[in-house]
């Protein structure tokens, strides 16, 4: 990973930002039109500071331009196509060129190295289906380092634990929710963490507070590292922790980070909390320009004792939008409702969508009021409704789902 002096990095970022804008302006009508609406063209952006003149990109735009509307290269150059649940009826489709994949791999490999991963490690990846793309990226980058990789597959907790113990896993990449389930399962199965080879736990996909983190470290007898990424427009390793564990370093050769006030859209005062906004600097197929992540963060001042000059952020809990983060997978209320409508043929009059903690397991819970349109005196018919809605949601969102039919009077009026 480059450790350029700040002046040199600024120059590199400006060069990359300008060519990203030039390519996006030429090849993507969405970007061109939005710049022109503001009376701008790429040549107006003469410094990193000028970035604030550009309009924000939001999640809804990703769905609106389904499937390929935001691609900045001809389809012939795309070597991987990935989709994720979006915020509208359409999923988010993103693509990578060969070069994009190469950059991602190298970048993610750098972040793994910062967590102390070497070719001596056996690295196990345990991620839900909704984060499958991250699983692939981590697998590829760990292979670059030369670590022995156990790629992510859907296994029961029992099997996960068996692999963890018998295959002598030393590094585990997973979400905080999954790590906590695994820790609990170990306790039940009477497996002593000290018997395992596990030393490093890389937590991804969800914000984690320090108390929970310390608990995990104690329960699993490991050191933890936190990574930040975006799941829809793939990139698991946008920001990462170093051995100092003093905030997350942003991979600034590839991303520009801003923190804005989610209401006014203006940059926050230095060090103040706000919404994290990202601009890609090297991505060829799917450039993001001032993309509002919905994640809350703040910049950490000062140079990190590790010596990296990359700026640092603190990833804060809660989101600035109404998305739910279920085991690292971000699901949007609109998208959930759309899938419910698809299953039922109509939008239920009364419903509640929430994140549910069942024991240690996080689930998406959808409660639907049984009114005249849904009512049936046959239990079987009602069961089939639950099954249908559940399976459509699971298939489209890639998270565990629980559907409950409730009597109408239990719902307050919306």
């Amino acid at each position, binding site marked *: 990973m480059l450790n350029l002096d700040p002046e040199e990095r600024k120059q590199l970022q400006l*060069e990359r930002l*300008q*060519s990203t804008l030039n390519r996006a302006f030429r090849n993507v009508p969405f970007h061109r039109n939005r710049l022109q609406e503001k009376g701008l063209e*790429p040549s107006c952006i*003469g410094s990193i500071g000028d970035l604030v003149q550009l309009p924000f990109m939001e999640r809804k735009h990703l769905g609106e331009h389904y499937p390929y509307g935001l691609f900045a290269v001809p389809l*012939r150059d795309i070597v991987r196509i990935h989709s994720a649940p979006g915020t509208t009826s359409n999923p988010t489709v993103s693509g990578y*060129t060969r*070069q994009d994949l190469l950059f991602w791999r190298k970048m993610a490999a750098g972040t793994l190295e910062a967590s102390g991963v070497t070719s001596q490690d056996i690295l196990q990846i345990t991620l839900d289906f909704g984060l499958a793309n991250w699983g692939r990226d981590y697998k590829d980058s760990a292979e670059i380092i030369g670590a022995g990789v156990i790629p992510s597959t859907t296994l029961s907790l029992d099997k996960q634990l068996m692999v963890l113990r018998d295959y002598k896993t030393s590094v585990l990449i997973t979400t905080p929710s999954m790590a906590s389930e695994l820790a609990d399962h170990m306790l039940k199965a009477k497996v002593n963490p000290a018997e395992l080879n596990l030393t490093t736990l890389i937590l991804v996909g969800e914000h984690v507070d320090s108390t929970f983190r310390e608990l995990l470290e104690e329960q699993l007898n490991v050191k933890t590292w936190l990574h930040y990424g975006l799941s829809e427009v793939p990139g698991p390793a946008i920001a990462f922790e170093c051995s100092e564990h003093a905030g997350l370093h942003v991979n600034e050769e590839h991303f520009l980070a801003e923190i804005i006030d989610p209401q006014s859209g203006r940059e926050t005062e230095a060090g103040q909390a706000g919404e994290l906004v990202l601009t890609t600097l090297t991505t060829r197929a799917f450039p993001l320009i001032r993309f509002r992540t919905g994640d809350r963060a703040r910049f950490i001042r000062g140079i990190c004792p590790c010596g990296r000059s990359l700026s640092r952020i603190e990833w804060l809990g809660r989101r600035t939008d109404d998305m739910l983060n279920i085991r690292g997978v971000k699901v949007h209320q609109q998208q959930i409702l759309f899938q419910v409508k698809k299953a039922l043929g109509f939008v239920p009059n009364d419903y509640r969508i929430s994140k549910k903690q069942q024991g240690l397991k996080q689930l998406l819970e959808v409660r639907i009021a049984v009114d005249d349109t849904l009512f049936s005196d046959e239990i079987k018919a009602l069961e089939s409704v639950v099954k249908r809605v559940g399976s459509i949601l699971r298939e489209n969102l890639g998270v565990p789902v629980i559907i409950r039919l409730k009597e109408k009077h239990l719902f307050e009026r919306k």
Partner: protein
Amino acid sequence: MLQIKNLKCYYGRIMAIKGASLSVRQGELVSLIGANGAGKSTLLQAVCGLLEHWEGEINFQGSGLHSLDSSQIVKNGISLVPEGRMIFPPLSVMDNLKLGAYTMYRRKMHTKVKQDLEMVLDLFPVLRERIHQAAGTLSGGEQQMLAIARALMARPKLLLLDEPSMGLAPLLVEKILATLVKLRKNGITILLVEQNAQAALKIADRGYVLETGSVVLQGAAEYLLNDDEVKRAYLGKDYKEFYEGRA
């Protein structure tokens, strides 16, 4: 060593360079590639102080070049090998070379000029053979060598070359480019402007792709050489529409 920030160059009201940023680090060989009319030569002229109207920042070794004229820029250590060689045909090879050391003579550095002369003649032995011949009687390849040798006589830290391969047979192009690699090894930093993208990227550390006055791509030369878009642009196989070649 050289940092260009948001350079805008104008010919009258036409913006020929539309906010380009690029940098050359000490000891690097950087290639700037692009089609005819992309603005490559204009950019070099701005760096050398040969262009009247430009905006932005050009910094060489930490200080700005905006207020300097071309002779001061040469004195600071930047030499240009211009497009079409621009040697003085009636003058001898020797006189052409001595003219390259003009700023050195003015600083009374005669001994150094003598040493440099030996150095460039060692680099291009054919020029030694033709030292008293009129430059206009040299072949195209020899004239190009003379143009490079003349630029070296000013003891540049940064050598700029504008299309040195133009009009030369492939074998000669190879020879000229091999010389650049040698110069780089001797510690001279090089910014090479070329239409011959393949050849220029093969010898470079990094590259920039200029398209109608804007940089659209940059990176390690190896990365650009394997890039689909660069390959298409220079092999003339651009896709007309998004789905072409698939589906």
